[in-house]
């Protein structure tokens, strides 16, 4: 389960960073990119708290 959540978080980050590169290569338009970035942001902020701080607490 934890692995699935981490993969979801990483997909959220990828969805945040990749769309502007697709704008740069002229494959999507800027408004689509902004929407995808927002979706990626929401996914990240929902999924990351489920594992990120727990990992930090263990490691520090």
């Amino acid at each position: 389960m934890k692995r699935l959540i981490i993969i979801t978080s990483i997909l959220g980050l990828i969805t945040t960073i990749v769309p502007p590169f697709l704008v740069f290569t002229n494959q999507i338009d800027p408004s689509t990119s902004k929407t995808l970035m927002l979706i990626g942001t929401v996914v990240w902020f929902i999924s990351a708290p489920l594992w990120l701080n727990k990992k930090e607490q263990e490691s520090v």
Partner: protein
Amino acid sequence: MNKSTSLVAKLNAINEYERQPIPESKLKSWKKFIGTYAGEHTAGTEFVLGPLFVAHGASAIDLVTGLLIGNVLAVLSWAFFTGKIAAKTRLTLYYQLEQIAGSKFTLIYNLVNAGLFCFLAGAMIAVSATAVGIPFNLEMPTLTDILPNSLGWILTVFAIGAITTVVAMFGFEQVSKFANIAAPWMIMVFIAAAVGVLPRLGINSLADFWPVAKNTIWTGVPLEGQSQFTFWHITFFAWFCNMAMHIGMADMSILRYAKKWTAGFSTASGVFLGHYIAWIASGILYSLFLLESNNSLTFAPGPIAYEAAGIAGAVCVVIAGWTTANPTLYRAGLAIQSINPNWKTWKVTLFVGLFTTIAACFPALVMRLLEFVALYGLILMPLGAVIFIDVYFMERWGLVRNYALESGKKLNPAVAFTWILTLGFCLALNLFADVEIFFLGLPGWFVAVIAYLIFSKLFQKPIVFKTQKVNLTSEPILNH
């Protein structure tokens, strides 16, 4: 820049080793510090500093090379100054300073630090306000603004200031955790936003980048009313923008947990992500704004990020500003509380929050952030020089280390006079020799070193040692 993330907050919250060296079992490898510094130096300030280089007319070649050299010098300073001393003493800056300068001096230092923290937090509240104001069509401040330009601006700043203060009073731990989560995402948004606007600047392939960078983004021509930045300005700024942390030794509090002094090199992660990539990215965003607004003097990171990355960009500005402002405000409260530990933390934080929010209403705090950051490092630098000399050279010169501790004095006059003389010298250089604030740190450090040795010779008296000559506070725990 700065100081918003996990380990810092966590270490500040831990009181176990505030007044004793870190035991060997608690030491961390250099890998732990890479993530900490990467998060810490991608903060709200990056949305302001990168654009200010554009406003000050930095040229592309000066920016790329100046940041490279300045950042390398900063990393070396962290490793060879802070890292080495932190690994040798295993103490926080505050406790080390108290042993050298005395408890009364540390109190003064804390108060000065608190004031600087308040202004930094204020600037970050203002940065957040520029994003929060977008849906309200708020009139944004301009580069030359000193006073608040509208009632709407004041109300927005007060709303954010109130939220920041209340959270700092009651929920600091949650903000620390939230900052942890936000850090990797913020770095992504910085990079993504800049890449997304490249076609609008005329960059459609990698080959287009450098010509556009030279002729459109970092043109070498300052905006109206702004001073000209050269290679040297950029190099020294990149080196000294965190002077309080490395040469000023504030990061002893973090690096004392490192197994080896070489963990200081881990700061490269933060420096090159935050002070290289993020500054370049935010500079690109600002230059697009200038291009499309016909060199408007409006300076508002919120709308600029919103234009480039939509809601995610605006949210990034709010979060970056807020997660920097919040722990800074909390730290300022703790510093003030050191005057009288019986004061309630929440009352002190409320007072500090009000002061910070009032300061945040003045846009000059944001527009002059380059100068403020340089001043912040400069003011705290002499105490780092004092610690450096005290740890390495006092005994070699026949003087007493940790003089306040050994003599029982609450204020070591040698440190106080060193601080005053160094800052006076820097002020004189600035006023009478027109040396800009960015360059004062280097000559100031040498003056501090010499002054501390001379004043120690003058003020130190023969003493009966209160501690054993060999103890944990003055000798290394580990051999490196």
